[in-house]
């Protein structure tokens, strides 16, 4: 097989172990008592406990963090996809004044450092009364997710032959009807991938989410950083909270596993 290189099993095996080992350690710790964590070095929990998880699921200040995070992540995904879809179609099919510059401008916003925007966003969303709501974070994350969604969807729309549009219009489809009835079903997998990426980048981002919330909409990542420093070092609880943040990603990834690479290539493989 030409595809392979010598020793590939060993290389791949070592790489996967390297990826999994730190995650294993976190999971391992999350099932230990703090006493066991600090006093001995054990490769698996000798006195397994689910107390850490129980605490998160019963303490409102903990589990509301997850709900808050999910709220703005879902909001952001919906906004990003719905504005990006028509734009992706336009970029894929038409040439118009300033299209290349606009595309570049979008790309440059995907790359803009969150640190630059933290303070101005804080001012902006305070001024319009959205501070500490899921809307503030959802809109703020649009700055990198909308361009990303446009990029990915443009790649997928370009994969749909132009003849399909033309036939539909000849058959008397109006533009909105063609869009919803024909185009959207055709690029359903692309929409799935784009949604997945919006979900992912909104889920992993911390700096903006933390800056734009204080009490009511505090995301789980901020709950983690604050509670830990206030309560001394509750390692078991911290590890359990960390493990729970990995689960949503691990779940959605299964559904898009065949498209992950294409999505990361911004639909351009």
């Amino acid at each position, binding site marked *: 097989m030409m595809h392979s290189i010598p020793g590939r099993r060993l290389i791949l095996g070592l*790489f996967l172990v390297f990826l999994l080992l730190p995650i294993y*350690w976190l999971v391992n710790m999350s099932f230990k008592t703090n006493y066991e964590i600090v006093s001995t070095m054990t490769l698996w929990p000798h006195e397994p406990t689910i107390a850490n998880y129980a605490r998160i699921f019963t303490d409102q200040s903990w589990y509301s963090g997850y709900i808050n995070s999910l709220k703005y992540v879902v909001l952001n995904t919906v*906004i990003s996809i719905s504005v990006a879809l028509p734009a992706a179609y336009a970029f894929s099919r038409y040439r118009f004044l300033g299209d290349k510059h606009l595309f570049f401008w979008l790309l440059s916003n995907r790359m803009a450092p969150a*640190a630059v925007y933290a303070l101005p966003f804080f001012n902006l969303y305070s001024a319009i009364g959205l501070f500490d709501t899921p809307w503030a974070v959802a809109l703020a994350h649009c700055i990198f997710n909308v361009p990303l969604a446009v990029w990915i969807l443009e790649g997928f729309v370009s994969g749909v032959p132009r003849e399909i549009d033309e036939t539909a219009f000849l058959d008397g489809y109006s533009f909105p009807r063609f869009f919803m009835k024909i185009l959207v079903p055709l690029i359903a997998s692309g929409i799935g991938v784009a949604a997945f990426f919006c979900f992912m980048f909104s889920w992993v981002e911390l700096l903006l989410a933390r800056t734009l919330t204080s009490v009511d909409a505090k995301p*789980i990542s901020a709950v983690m950083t604050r509670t830990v420093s206030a309560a001394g070092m509750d390692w078991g609880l911290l590890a359990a909270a960390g493990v729970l943040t990995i689960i949503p990603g691990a779940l959605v990834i299964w559904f898009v596993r065949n498209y992950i*690479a294409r999505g990361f290539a911004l639909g351009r493989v």
Partner: protein
Amino acid sequence: MDRTVNQKAWFLVLPVFLVVAFSAVLPLMTVVNYSMQDTFGNNQFFWNGVGWFKELLDPSTDLGGRFFASLWRNLFFSAVILAIEVPLGIVVALSMPRRGWSVAACLVIMALPLLIPWNVVGTIWQIFGRPDIGLLGYVLHKIGLNYNYVSNDLDAWATVIVMDVWHWTSLVALLCYAGLKSIPDAYYQAAQIDGASRWAVFKAIQLPKMNRVLLIAVLLRFMDSFMIYTEPFVVTGGGPGNSTTFVSIELVKIALGQFDLGKAAALSLVYNLIIIIVCWVFYTVMTNAGAERQPSKGVA
């Protein structure tokens, strides 16, 4: 498939334009405004012209010194992680199994680090590297290394770099894998008939096919490492001393820590400008590469 000229397409792009303009242009205007002024609190502002910029670009001042130190540090960091992640990603992609359930399993495991919130990535490595409770730190101490990322510059750097390799190499590998998968089997069969060596196959077939995705990988990795904030902040807090204070960390320190709005704004603008220039270079190269291979593919 040539794209037709249609100015009405602007109506389709308008929602995106408005959303991104609202969250990018509006805040940026605030930044430009701050960058020209000085404040002593109480919402009192004084005109300062280009004073902050002069100070920022002069390495002999305090602000300029900090800016350039964090800039070089950050560029060095980006160079190191690119030098590790790109070759490693290619090797891993070439090692991927070709078919069967193991492909899906590998893909899912590899994507896992990419989906972990960045502060949790920091937390994982913070714990993993501690000599008292972390496996890595414990093992390193057992074999006699005096590893401590909190007090030793070199150890802190090593930790941050290994963490980034752990976090992002999969991205490069996944992209390369996607590029490799798009090579038709016939190419390999032809190479086999010609009796081409493995190296020749890699150079003549696989590398050219990966060009495009590699470019995207390098662009994404450069940009994301150039604006890295959360992960090193959680692990080292920018220390020991300032040894892992990258540009974003320095910026947040000035903006939200000291509330020096003028200085922070000037730094933001220069930072953004560097990013836009690098972006533009990549974009031009990408557009040209795309135009050569697929003349019909249009924008990018």
